[in-house]
C-alpha cells in the first residue's frame, strides 16, 4: 500500500485493474462521457481527473479509494457537481450519481443514495405528508447538502439540515465502508454533519423527515430604485419575526438573456423571498409590512406544496461559471445595510449577478442533541454574492466580492457556511469551522485516511497546520 507511481505520470496507472474491480465504468480523458461526468456545475472550476469512476455501489467507491491509496492518487467526489473545487494533485473522480436508492420508511425516516437530488426525495415524501430540510435549490444532491450543514428556505423553523441526519454509510479514506450513527462510529457521525467530504465518501444518508405538506411564501421582485427602502425595511422587519418565518433579500442584476423574465433582465431588482410554516393567514399578515417597501415588478406569494419549495429562490439549474463570496454576520445594524447598499445598491457599479442576505437565527442557532461539525450557529445573517467567472468580468467580480466582505467585516462573525463559496484554499476552509472543530476534523482525517487519499481533507489539514 505505498505510492509506487510517480504521481505526475499517470499514464502508467493500471486503470484497467480498477475497471476490472468495479461494477461501474471507468472513463478516461478524451471521451464525451468523461467530459460530461467530470464537468462540475460550476464550469469555471477546472476538473481533469486521471479517470472518472461512475460508481454503482458502495463497493465501487471502496475499490476506487483503495486504488487511489495504492497509487498515490487523491480522490474527489461528485454527484450533481455542486460545490466542486480544484484538486491540485492527480486524482480520481468518483461519480456517485448512479447511487440512487431512495426509500421512505414507515417511521418517517428516509434512506437516500448519494446520487439523489432533493427534488426526488421531496416528491417521494410528499404523498406521506412528509418533507426533508431541503435547500433553496432542490436540484442539489441530498448528501452533499447535508454534509455541509444545510440552510434552506425554512431554516429558521426546521433548523440546520444536518441536524436531521440519523445515519451515514461512508467509505472512509482507508477504503472501509463504515456506518456512522450517534452510537456507532460517533466521531465520524460528528464529522460528516458539517465536515463535507473531509472524512470520506458518503454513499447513503438516512434522515428524519418532518410532517410538512405546504408552506405559505414565494418571491416578489421590487424595482431596483427601491433597494434602500426594501433592505432597511427588511432589516427592521426581521427583528420581530417569529421562528415560523424565514426570509431573504437579494439585489439582482440579471443579464438580458433568453429565459430571463423581461422586468428583471438587464436591470437592477431586489427580490424578497419568504416562507412561513403554519397558518397561511398568519403568514400573510406577518408579510404585509414588507410588501409596501417598494414598487413590485414581478412575483407573488401564496400557498406552495413543500415539494415546490424551489420556487421561492428560483436558483439557476443549468451549470454556469460562478465566483462566490460569502460571510456570516452577527448583526445587521443600519450602518451594515448602508455599507452593503454602497457597494451593491442601484447606484453602485456592482458586477455581481446577485448579492443576497439570508435571515438566520431561530432553530439554526440551537445545538442539536448530538453535536456535529457544523458550528457556525452564531451568525444571524448570511451574506452571499455570486458573479460570473468569465473574462472580462471575473476579475471585477473577485475584487468586488473582497470589497463587500471588507465593508461588512465590522459585523462579521469571521466565519462562513460550509456549503457556500466552495474552496480548496486552506484560509477559506478555515473560515467555515471553529478551531476546535477544525482540529478534530484534521485528527479524524489522520485517523480514517492513512494515505491522505481524500482531496477534500487536504485543505482542512493545511488549515490546521497553519492555525
Amino acid at each position, binding site marked *: 500500500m505505498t505510492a509506487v507511481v510517480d504521481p505526475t505520470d499517470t499514464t502508467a496507472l493500471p486503470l484497467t485493474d480498477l475497471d476490472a474491480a468495479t461494477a461501474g465504468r471507468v472513463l478516461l480523458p478524451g471521451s464525451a462521457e468523461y467530459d460530461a461526468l467530470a464537468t462540475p456545475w460550476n464550469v469555471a472550476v477546472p476538473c481533469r481527473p486521471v479517470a472518472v469512476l461512475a460508481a454503482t455501489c458502495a463497493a465501487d467507491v471502496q475499490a476506487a479509494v483503495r486504488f487511489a491509496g495504492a497509487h498515490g492518487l487523491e480522490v474527489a467526489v461528485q454527484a450533481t457537481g455542486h460545490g466542486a473545487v480544484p484538486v491540485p494533485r492527480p486524482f480520481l473522480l468518483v461519480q456517485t450519481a448512479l447511487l440512487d436508492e431512495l426509500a421512505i420508511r414507515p417511521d418517517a425516516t428516509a434512506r437516500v443514495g448519494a446520487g439523489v437530488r432533493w427534488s426526488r426525495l421531496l416528491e417521494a415524501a410528499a404523498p406521506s405528508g412528509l418533507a426533508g430540510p431541503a435547500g433553496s435549490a432542490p436540484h442539489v444532491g441530498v448528501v452533499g447538502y447535508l454534509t455541509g450543514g444545510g440552510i434552506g428556505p425554512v431554516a429558521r423553523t426546521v433548523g440546520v439540515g444536518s441536524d436531521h441526519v440519523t445515519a451515514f454509510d461512508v467509505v472512509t479514506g482507508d477504503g472501509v465502508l463504515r456506518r456512522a450513527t450517534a452510537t456507532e*462510529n*460517533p*466521531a*465520524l457521525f*460528528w464529522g460528516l454533519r458539517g465536515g463535507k467530504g473531509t472524512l470520506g465518501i458518503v454513499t447513503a444518508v438516512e434522515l428524519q423527515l418532518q410532517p410538512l405538506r405546504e408552506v405559505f411564501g414565494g418571491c416578489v421582485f421590487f424595482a431596483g430604485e427601491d433597494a434602500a427602502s426594501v433592505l432597511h425595511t427588511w432589516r427592521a422587519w426581521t427583528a420581530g419575526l417569529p421562528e415560523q418565518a424565514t426570509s431573504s433579500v437579494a439585489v439582482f442584476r440579471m443579464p438580458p438573456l433568453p429565459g430571463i423574465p423581461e422586468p428583471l433582465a438587464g436591470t437592477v431588482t431586489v427580490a424578497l423571498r419568504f416562507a412561513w410554516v403554519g397558518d397561511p393567514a398568519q403568514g400573510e399578515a406577518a408579510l404585509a409590512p414588507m410588501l409596501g417597501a417598494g414598487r413590485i415588478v414581478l412575483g407573488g406569494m401564496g400557498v406552495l406544496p413543500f415539494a415546490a419549495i424551489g420556487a421561492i429562490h428560483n436558483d439557476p439549474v443549468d451549470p454556469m461559471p460562478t465566483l462566490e463570496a460569502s460571510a456570516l454576520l452577527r448583526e445587521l445594524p443600519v450602518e451594515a445595510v448602508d455599507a452593503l447598499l454602497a457597494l451593491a445598491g442601484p447606484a453602485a457599479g456592482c458586477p455581481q449577478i446577485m448579492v443576497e442576505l439570508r435571515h438566520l437565527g431561530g432553530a439554526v442557532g440551537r445545538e442539536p442533541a448530538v453535536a456535529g461539525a457544523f458550528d457556525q450557529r452564531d451568525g444571524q445573517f448570511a451574506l452571499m454574492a455570486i458573479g460570473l467567472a468569465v473574462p472580462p468580468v471575473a476579475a471585477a467580480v473577485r475584487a468586488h466580492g473582497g470589497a463587500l466582505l471588507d465593508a461588512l467585516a465590522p459585523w462579521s462573525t469571521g466565519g462562513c457556511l460550509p456549503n457556500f463559496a466552495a474552496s480548496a484554499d486552506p484560509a477559506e476552509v478555515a473560515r467555515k469551522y471553529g*478551531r*476546535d472543530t*477544525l*482540529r*478534530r476534523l*484534521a*485528527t*479524524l*482525517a*489522520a*485517523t*480514517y485516511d*492513512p*494515505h*491522505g487519499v481524500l482531496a477534500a481533507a*487536504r485543505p482542512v*489539514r*493545511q*488549515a*490546521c*497546520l*497553519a*492555525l
Partner: protein
Amino acid sequence: MEYRVLGPLEVVRDGVPVDVGGPKQRAVLAVLLLDAGRVVPADRIVDAVWGADHPPSVMAGLQAYVSNLRRVLRDDGAAVSPIVRRPPGYLLDVPPGAIDLTRFADDAAVAHAAVTERDWSAARDAATRALALWRGPLLADLQDEPWVQPVATGLQERRGECTEDLVTALLGLGDITTGLGLARDLHSADPLRERACWLYAVALYRAGRPADALAAYREHARVLDDELGLEPGPALRDLQGAILRQDPELSSWPGRPAARVPGVVEPAVPERPAPPPEPEPDTADSLVGRRRELATVTAALSDGGGWVILTGPAGIGKTRLAQEAAGRWSRDVPAARVLRVACPDDEGVPDWWPVRQLVRELGADPDAVLSRPAAAGVDAARFAVYERLLALLRAAADDGPLLVLVDDVQWADSTSVRFLTHLAGSAAAIRLGVVLTVRDGPAGPDLGALLAAAVRRPGTRQLAVPPLDAGEVGELVRRISGEPVDRRDADVLAARTGGNPFFVGEYARLPAEDRAGGSVPVAVRSVLGRRLSALDPAVLQVLRAAAVIGEPFDPELLRAVTRLDTDELADLLDDAADERIVQVSPGAAGWRFAHGLLRDEVLAGISDVRVRRLHLRVAEAVSAGGGVDRLVRRAAHLTAALPLADPAEALVACRAAAVDAEQRWNSDAAAQWWGTALRVFDQLPEAGPDRERDELVIARVAALARAGRGQTVLDVVDAAVLDAVRAGRTSSVGRLASALLRTTGAWPWAVYGEDPAPLLSRLAGVEQLVGTDPVAHAQVLAALAVGSCYDPDGTVPDLLAARAVEVAERSGDPDALADALLGRALTFSGVAERAAESVEILERLAGLPHRQQQVDDVLRHGLLTMATLTLGRVEDAARHVRQGIAGSELLRLPVSRAQLRWTEGMLAQWRGELGEAERLYDHAYELHQQTELYRSGVHYLAMLALRWDEGRLAELPDPSRGNAEIAPAALALITAARGDGDRAAELIRAELDRPEPVVWTSHGRWAMLAHAVADLG
C-alpha cells in the same frame, strides 16, 4: 512643644509638626538643640551652617533665620520665644522633657543603673522607652554635616549600650525570644562590636542553641581576622569555653533579680571595645512627601503579617518608600527586624540570588540551605528546599517581628520568584511582613503568578507609587542642593521629570552653576547625561566596565577587565561613590550603581561594538577566575559578546551552564540556558547538523518538563514543530513528537498545560506531511493518538495508536517502535477495559532494546501500576510503584514521581491505612500543584474517597472553585450523606441531565452519583 532630633529634625506642637523652614534654618535650630540650655557662640553656628570659609555677610542671614525661628517656635499663649539672645551667641531655653535627646539620655541612664542593680523589669521598661524615641539616625536630614557626625557617633554608641542593657534585662526576665532577636540585630548592625557578639552568643545559648552560639563566635572571629587581623578578646574566648563546658552559670545569666537571689556570680563581661567609625549612611535625605503612602504601607504592615507590593516606573521612589516604611515599622515595633535583599538586573546572575542574600541575613549558610537534599526524593528536592527556607523564616519570625523587603522583584530569577510565590501561598502560619518593589513593565508568567498569589492573600496592599507634586519637587531640590527653587522652576521641573524623584534628585546634584546657568533640561535623560559627562573620563571608563559586568560588581573582576592596578581602581571607585553614582552593595560583597537608571545611562553611552568587546573581556576575566557562578557568568558574557565572540565557544559555554544548572537541579535555569544555546546555535557561521539542533530543543523541552512548565513545553514543541515543517526537517518533527510523549510521565500529554489544542492541531496538520518518513510518521501518530485520548469516540486514539505501531513496525526502527508502543500504552492509561492489553504492550516494550529504555522503564512501571491496579493485582501494583519510584529518583523524573505519589496514596487507602493515605494525598497534591499538570478536582476526589471509607463524608467542605468537573456530583453525594434527601435527588437529576464528554473524571462522577442514589435508598 516637642523637639525631636533622634531622626529627622522635627518640632511638634500638640501633635502637629511645625514647619521650621529650609535646610539652613533647620541647621541653626539643630545646632542650638544639641546644646540646649547652653549658650552657643554665633561664630560656631555660622561655621556649622555656612562652613568655615563664609563671607562676613552671613551674619545677617543668621539673624534672619533666628528671627524666623523665633516666630514659628513661639507658643501661642506665651509671647516669649525659646531662643534667647545671649552674647556671644544664642541659647535655646526649653524644659529638658521637651527634647527627645534629653529624655533618651535620662531613660538610658535609668536603665543602665537598673541593670547594675539587677532590677530587670525597671531596666527593660526604661530601655524600651529610651529606644522607642529613635526614629532614625540623629538629625537624619542633616547627618552629613560635619558638626553632626561626632555627636551622632557618640549617641549611636549610647543607643547600642542601651540596647545591650535591654538585652540583658530581657534575658534576666527570661524573655529569651525577644532578647535573642534584639541581640542578633545588634550584632548584625555592628559585626565588629565584641559585646554585641558576646550577648548574641549568650542569648543563642540560652535559647537552647549552643551550636549556633559557637557558630556565631566562630563567624565573629573570622570577621575580626578578615577585617582587622585581630583575635577575639578574652571575654569572648572565655565565653566560648563556658559554652563548650556547658557552664551552668551561663544557663542562668544574667541571673535572677537581685532582690531575691543575691550573690549570683556573673561571668566576665567584656569591656566595651572602642566604637568603630559609623558606617557611611546610604541616604542623606529624609523622605519628601509620601505621607499618605507611608501611612498606607505602615498600616498594612502593622499587624506583622502583611504583604505590600509597591509598583511604579524606575526612579519613582519605590525602594525609598519601602525603606522608610520599613524603618518606621521597625522603630514602632519593639525588637523588630528588617531584612533587605535586592535583585540585580543581570542575565548572568545565578539562581536563588535574592533568596541567597536573605538566608545569609538570617544567619544561615545559603549553600547548605539551598542545596538539594541528598536523601529526599527527586521530585521533592525543590519542596525540601522550600521547607527549609520556610522553617528558617518561621524560626526568625518566632524570635521577633520580621519584615523582608525584596527590591526590584521584576529582575529576580525564576527560582526565587517561584519560592516567593510559594511563600505567598503558604505563609499564613508565619508572622512575616513582606514588601516587594516591582518596576512597571510587562510581567512574565512567573512574576504574574507571584503578584497574583500575593494579591490573593488577605490584607495585601498593592500601591502604585505616585509622582511628586510640584511643591514636593521643589522641596526635594532644596534639600539636596541646599538652595531654594522658585515655584515656576519647580512646576517646570515637575512637568519635565514627571514628578520622578530620582530625576529630580539627579538634577539637584548637578553642579550649582549648571543648575543656575542652564534652564531645567528638556529631557530627563539629559540630566543623567550631564551628570555623567561631568565625571573624570577615567572614572567613566571604570563605570562602563562595571555596567557591562552587571550588578553587584566585584572590584577584583573590575580590575581584571579595566587592567588598572588596585589602588588606582579604588580611587576611581571612590570618586564615583562621592558623586553618588555607585555605592557598596548592601548585604553582598561588591559594588552597585546607586540606581538602575544610572547603569542604563552608562550603558547607553557605549557603542554596541564596545559593549560587545567589554563583554568579551569580562568573559575572559571570568574564565580566569573561579567562583561558583563562573560558568553562568561566562556564558552570559560570551553570548552578549556575539558576534564578536566565537559562537562555537559561546555554544560550549551555554551548554556548560545548562548542564551545570541541571546538576544543581535548577531546571528553570537549565531550560533558559538550553534556549540561549539554541539561539547561539542558529548564529553559527556554518549551520550545524539538524540532529544537534534537535537535541538542544529536546534538552530544553526536557528541562521545561522537569521544571513543571507544561504550557511552555507545549508552546516550545509547537513552535519547533512548525520550524521543522517549514524547513522540511521531518525527522526533527518526529523527534519532537517523541520527546513530547515523555514529558508527562504515565499520563497523556494532553493533560499538560492550559491548552493542548494548538499543538494537537499542529500534529494533526503535519501528519500527512511526514508520511514519507516512516520513523517520524510513527512518532507523530503516537503523539497524536495520545493527544486525542479524550476524544469522545475511543476508536480515534485506538486507531491512531494502532497505526503508529503498524508504521513503526514497517520502518524496522526500534526507537520508533518504542515510541509507538509507549504511545499506545499511554492512550490506554486509566482505561479499564484495555488494562490487560496495556500490560501486553508494555511487556513488548520491556523486551525491546532502544535508546530511551531507561526512561521508558519508569514510565512503564507507572503505567503498569495503573493497569495492574485496575485488574485487581494489588501486589503487582505495589511492586511497580516501588520500581517506578526508584527509577524516577534515579533519572530525575519529577512528574512521574508526583504521579506515583498519588498511586502510593491509593495503595495505602486500599490497604486500609487511611491516615497514611491522607498524608500521601496531601503531599502528592502539593507536588502536583507545582507541575502544570491538569488538576481539576483530583485532590478533592481523593479526599472524598478517603472520607467515604472513613464514614465521614458529611464532614467534607462543599466542593469549591477548581473542582468544576466533579463539583456537582460531589455535592450530590455530600448532600445525601448529610441527610438532605430531596436536595440530593434534585442535584442528581440535574447532574444526570448535564451533557459532558467522557474524560478521566467521568467514571468518578458516575460512581459518586451511583453511591448517592444508593445512599438515598
